[in-house]
Structure formats: C-alpha cells, structure tokens
C-alpha cells in the first residue's frame, strides 16, 4: 500500500470556479497576445524588454517553485527522511511552477517560433547566461516530471514501470538538486550581464548568484510551509506544524547568511550610504530587509515557531521578501536610461494571473485525483 493517497472530493468547488473565471479572462488576453502581438496587450517597450511575464512568471515563479529543490536537498542530501511526506506535493508544485514559468517566458519572446533553436547544440553560445538558464530549466522540467511520475504510475497501477523508475530515481534526484543550483544562481548572473542598468544596491558585483541561490532556497522552504499550511486549512488536514518547525534551523541559517552577505557586500563595496539616501530605492531595500528580518525574529523563538499561524506568516514574509528582492533588481529600480518607464497593463497582469490560476487549478485537481499528499497518521 502506498504511503500517499488521493484526496478525493469534488473538483468544482467555489474557489475553483473563481480561479476558472480568472483563467478564462487571462486566456482571452493570451490569445490576443499571439494573434495581435505583444504590443496589443502589454506595456513592454524598448527600455523595459522584461516586464512581469519574465520577472514574475520566470524569475520569481521558478523561485516559488523551488520547494522540490529545497526538500530534495533536505531529504536526500542531508538524509532527513522524516520530511519525506512533504516531498511529493512539493515536487508537484515545482513541476507546475517551472512548467508555467517556461510557458510564461513564451509570452515574452518576440520570435517565439524560433525557440526550438535552443535545442540544437550547434547553435549554442556558451558565453550566454540565457542559454544556461533556458536549457537548464527545460531539462529540469523533464526531471521534475520524472520525479513526479511515481504518483501517476501508482494511480494507474503500472508497477513494473514504477519499479524500474525507482531504480534510476536516485540519479534523477541528484540532477534535481544540481540543475536548480545551476540555473537559480544564473538568474542572479543575469543581473551582472545587465550592468549599470541595475541599481547599485542590487548590482553588488559578482555576489548576485550567491544571493539569488540563497533566496531561492529560502523561498523554496517557505513555499513548502505555505503549501502544508494551506492544505491544512483548505482541506482541513492535520497541521504539520511540528514537522515544519524542525526545518527552522535550516531556514534560520539561510536567512542569516543572506542578510550577512547582503549587508557585508554593501559595506565592502561602500554602498551602505545608499540605503539611507531616502529615495525610492532606499525605501525598497529597507522594506526588503525588513521582510527578511521578520521571519528571522519569528523563527528564533521556539515558542512562536511551534504555532502554525506564525509559521505561515513567516513563510509569507519570506516569499514576499524573495519576490521583492527580484522585483527590485529586475524591475522596480531598473533604469534603462532616460525616457523609459513601465507599469504592466491590465491585460498583461491578467495573463500572469491567468497562468497562476491555472497552476493552482492543476494542483487542486492533481492532489484530488492522484496519490500526492501523505496518508494521514490518524487514518491508519
């Protein structure tokens, strides 16, 4: 008997119908984007070639999807088997997050029909950060699909195939740890490549990959907590706060490393003064740092971190902190030169929301029909 079970229950619940409505509105604009072009739906321009489709769907979205990465690290690298119940839902969320991140990038590609070229080795430019990100993400989506495949195989009773997959799964999991390490840090390297357009507070020379990687791991752990909390609330399952609370040591380590590296690098590069320049960028970095610091305060207290509600608030803060770090660097304080400005259009936002709604709908359907969530102990 599998340790996982399908949740069952009705699929067309009220929240699902709301999500469906958002998705349908988004879909209308998606069709318009491909029929009439990017200019028809988005506010992208010559200076801001990357809007929310890239910054939210890809840069933030794949960091949100790092739950599978973070847990794979914990369970398989540090051999913390007790977290195993959290792995499958996290891998599913990662798969959906990455797949839709890739899908989101498609909207932003001016000549999306030439995308296949990335799979032709003869065309590779090994100096390109984008190539690393693009290829690595494409391969990781396949790896995630294979990591999640046991759930599908169990559902349809294909035990022979499941057995042979389990034999090579250790290799796939190793790749599943390696690949995100590569491309999540490369997402930071993109900032290096953008040079002086990135605000000095975020253009911390050559430390961007480290910061991107640590914050992606922080967001990965946060999303695990977030998912476990929301399924506890939404599906009225037993709270997994006790299990989640044990992760706090790791998260505390990551959060303090991030903050120390962040401040130390600003200090060494003589940019600390910019924090107090009382402009938009200084406000943003203060907000960002506060969002990283609040969860640290919560997690440092064992009493607080044993409560599910505090954990959820900490997780939400970390998700917002990581997102804001990315948004600040790529969009909010990004300066492509005089004369350029950008704020996403309503249609552009609806496409992104539609993608997110689709992601949540797919997650809901799959946990209800496939053995994803861990069998609850009291049910045994």
């Amino acid at each position: 008997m599998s340790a996982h079970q399908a949740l069952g229950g009705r699929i067309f619940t009220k929240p699902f119908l709301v999500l469906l409505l958002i998705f349908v509105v988004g879909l209308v604009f998606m069709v318009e984007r491909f029929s009439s072009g990017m200019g028809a739906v988005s506010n992208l321009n010559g200076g801001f070639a990357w809007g929310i489709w890239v910054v939210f769907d890809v840069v933030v979205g794949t960091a949100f999807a790092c739950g599978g990465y973070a847990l794979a690290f914990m369970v398989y690298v540090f051999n913390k088997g007790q977290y195993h119940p959290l792995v499958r839902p996290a891998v599913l969320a990662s798969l959906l997050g990455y797949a839709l991140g890739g899908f989101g990038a498609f909207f932003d590609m001016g000549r999306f029909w030439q995308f296949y070229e990335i799979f032709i080795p003869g065309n590779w430019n090994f100096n390109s950060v984008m190539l690393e990100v693009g290829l690595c993400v494409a391969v990781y989506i396949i790896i995630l699909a294979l990591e999640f495949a046991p759930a599908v195989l169990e559902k349809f009773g294909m035990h022979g195939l499941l057995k042979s997959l389990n034999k090579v799964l250790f290799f796939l999991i190793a790749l599943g740890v390696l690949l995100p390490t590569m491309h999540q840090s490369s997402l930071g390297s993109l900032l290096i490549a953008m040079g002086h357009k990135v605000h000095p507070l975020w253009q911390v020379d050559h430390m961007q990959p480290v910061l991107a990687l640590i914050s992606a791991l922080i967001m990965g752990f946060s999303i695990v907590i977030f998912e476990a909390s929301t399924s506890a609330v939404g599906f009225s399952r037993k709270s997994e706060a006790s299990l989640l609370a044990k992760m706090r040591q790791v998260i505390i380590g990551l959060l303090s490393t991030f903050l120390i590296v962040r401040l130390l690098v600003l200090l060494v590069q003589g940019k600390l003064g910019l924090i107090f320049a009382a402009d938009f960028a200084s406000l943003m970095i203060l907000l960002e740092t506060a969002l990283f610091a609040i969860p640290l305060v919560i997690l440092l207290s064992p009493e607080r971190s044993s409560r599910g509600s505090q954990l959820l608030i900490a997780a939400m803060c970390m998700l917002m902190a990581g997102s804001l770090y990315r948004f600040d660097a790529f969009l909010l304080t990004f300066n492509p030169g005089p004369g350029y400005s950008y704020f996403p259009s309503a249609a552009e936002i609806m496409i992104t929301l539609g993608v997110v709604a689709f992601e949540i709908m797919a997650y809901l359907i799959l946990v209800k029909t496939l053995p994803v969530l861990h069998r609850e102990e009291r049910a045994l």
Partner: protein
Amino acid sequence: MEIELDYSSIEKRLGVTRRTFLKFCTGVAASLGLSSQSAIAMANAIADPKKRPPVIWLHGQECTGPTESLLRSEQPSMEHLILDLISLDYHQTLDAGAGHSVEHIKKQSMLENKGKYLLVIEGAIPIKDKGIYCKIAGETMLDLTLEAAEHAAAIVAFGSCASWGGVQSASPNPTGATGAPQVLKDKTVVTIPGCPPNPANFIGTVLYFVTYGKLPPIDAEGRPKWAYGRLVHENCYRRPHFDAGRFATEFGDDGHKKGYCLYKLGCKGPETYNNCPSLEYNNVGGNVWPIGVGHPCFGCSEKGVGFEKAMFNELSDVKTHTPPNMFPAIEVRESSSGISTGAAALTGVAIGAAVGATAMGARKLDQQEKDQS
C-alpha cells in the same frame, strides 16, 4: 619538455616589441577559435627559426590582389611577420632578382626541400589548349602548378581565382580558367577565396600550419572552417533589419540612408560564406567592409555567386530563413501609457488577496490547533 623561448630575437628580427608580437599571436589564435595556449605555441613556432617552412608562391591569371592586400595589411608589421615567419624562396612579385637566376633558385629550393615546402597558388590556371594562355619563363601555369604540387607539404590557393577561377572563369571563359583544386584533383588544397581575400584568413591558416605541422579543419570546398564556417548574413550587423522586414530598395532612398538591410539591392550575404562582418577590412575599424559602407555584398568569395550572378538585379538565394511576405508592425515605444486604473486595481487586489488570505489562514490554523489541544 619544451624550452621557454626568449622573444628578444623576435624583437630584433621582426622589429616589433614582445608585447605587440604576443598580442598579434593571441589575436590570430582567437580568430581561429583556439585557446590562449595555442597563442603561445604559435609564438614559439614563429620564434623558432628552424620551424620556418620554405614557401613557393606561384602567380597565374590574376591582378595580384591577394599579394597586394597581404602587403598592405596594417596589423603590426604583418608583412614582416609573413616574410620572416616563412622562408619565401620564390615569389614573382616580391623577388628582388629576375630572369633565369630566380627560376634556378626555385628549382633548387624545390629539390632541397622536397616534401617540406608550402605551395601557395595565386591566380587562376587556364587549361584550354593545354594551358597556353598563361606562361611564365616559357612554361605554362598548368605545368608549373603540377610540377610544384608534386612534392609540396601543403597547398594553399589564395584568392578567388586560385580557389575556383574567379573573374577569369566568368562566362564565356575563353581561356578555360579554373581554380587549383580542379587542377590538383588528387591533392588537398586549402582555399582562401575572396576578391581580395582577407589577409588575416591567410595568416591564420599559415600560422596554424607552422605551429601544428598540419592544416586547419576545412569544408568541402577546401575553405578553413574557422574563417568560412558562417554566412556573411549570419553575423551581419544589418541582420535585424532583414528579420524585421526593413529594406533599402534604391541607393540613396530613405531606407538606405537609415542603414536598412541591402537584400533587395541584391546583397549576396545570405549565400556567401565568409567572415567579413567580424573581421572587416583594412584594420581601421569603424565598420569598414562592403556592407558596412552601404554596398551590397556581391559574393566575391563564393563560387557561382561572385562574377556569376547579377550584382544588383538578382536576389540572393537565402541559405537560412527566407523573409516572410508579411511582417508585424514595429513601433518605436519609449514609455507605456503609465499606470492605468485597471492595472493599479488589479495589482492592489492581487497583493491584497495574498496578504488577506495569509491572515485568514493564520487565524484558521490557530483555531485548528486550539481544537486539537
């Protein structure tokens, strides 16, 4: 172990500083796509006088363009390098001597260096009527080529004429002019086509030969892949205009003034393999090469294109993507319309929903925990 060579002899011999010399070697290695270690290997090969290969240089039907372009190259003392890098035993344009004496030196050198000398052929070889249309010292170019090729270590055809016939072979081709590879069918001939060819492509190939004792990888036409591996079109700085459908249609029209793609003026870049866009000409920088100065490429280095197709009135046969008939409109936008009410509302709702849901969730979790305890 290889002994570290002292480049001071080079400084004297070539009249260049060590720094300039090493910069040159690194540049050549880089344009060949080799590592920086190869640059040192090349430098050592040049510094080692024992490695200088004897060179026999033949001229056929041509304008001496390749030699002229080589001599006028402005790279630091390139003519020094080429003349000191190799032992130029016979070259009809550059030989100080004349008449029987130089012919004698040539025969002697070929005999002494049997199987070791580098043969460079410049100019087309007429084969009609047993090659009587081009004679040097009473012998036909055809015979001279066959004789010199017999015991050559390597053969390089320099320029379009030697590579495939060039302008001489243009219709009606009264002398039956052909390139060296067609005459020397059973030998490997490296071709460096171009009219004139870029001297850097020749220097790079020769340096590779001197350093490694073999010729660089070549394609089916005998062209070194490092120089002729890509279409002019692929690396052309006007390519974005091609892809966007912005063409100059007449010399001096609005599109031409704005630097649009020259495809509709008959540019043969899309079917010509050469590295002009990245190397340019004359080493002066500033985009000096035909397309860079507003003239369509006429495919001088490509057999069947240069001297064959009409320069302006014939469109090239695009080897990559053909341009579509319809192009999407491209508007130049600086800033968007600003924050619309709808967009601001949506952003607020999305962030608000996330924060609100978290608050609700936290309350519910507290409730659950209370119920359980």
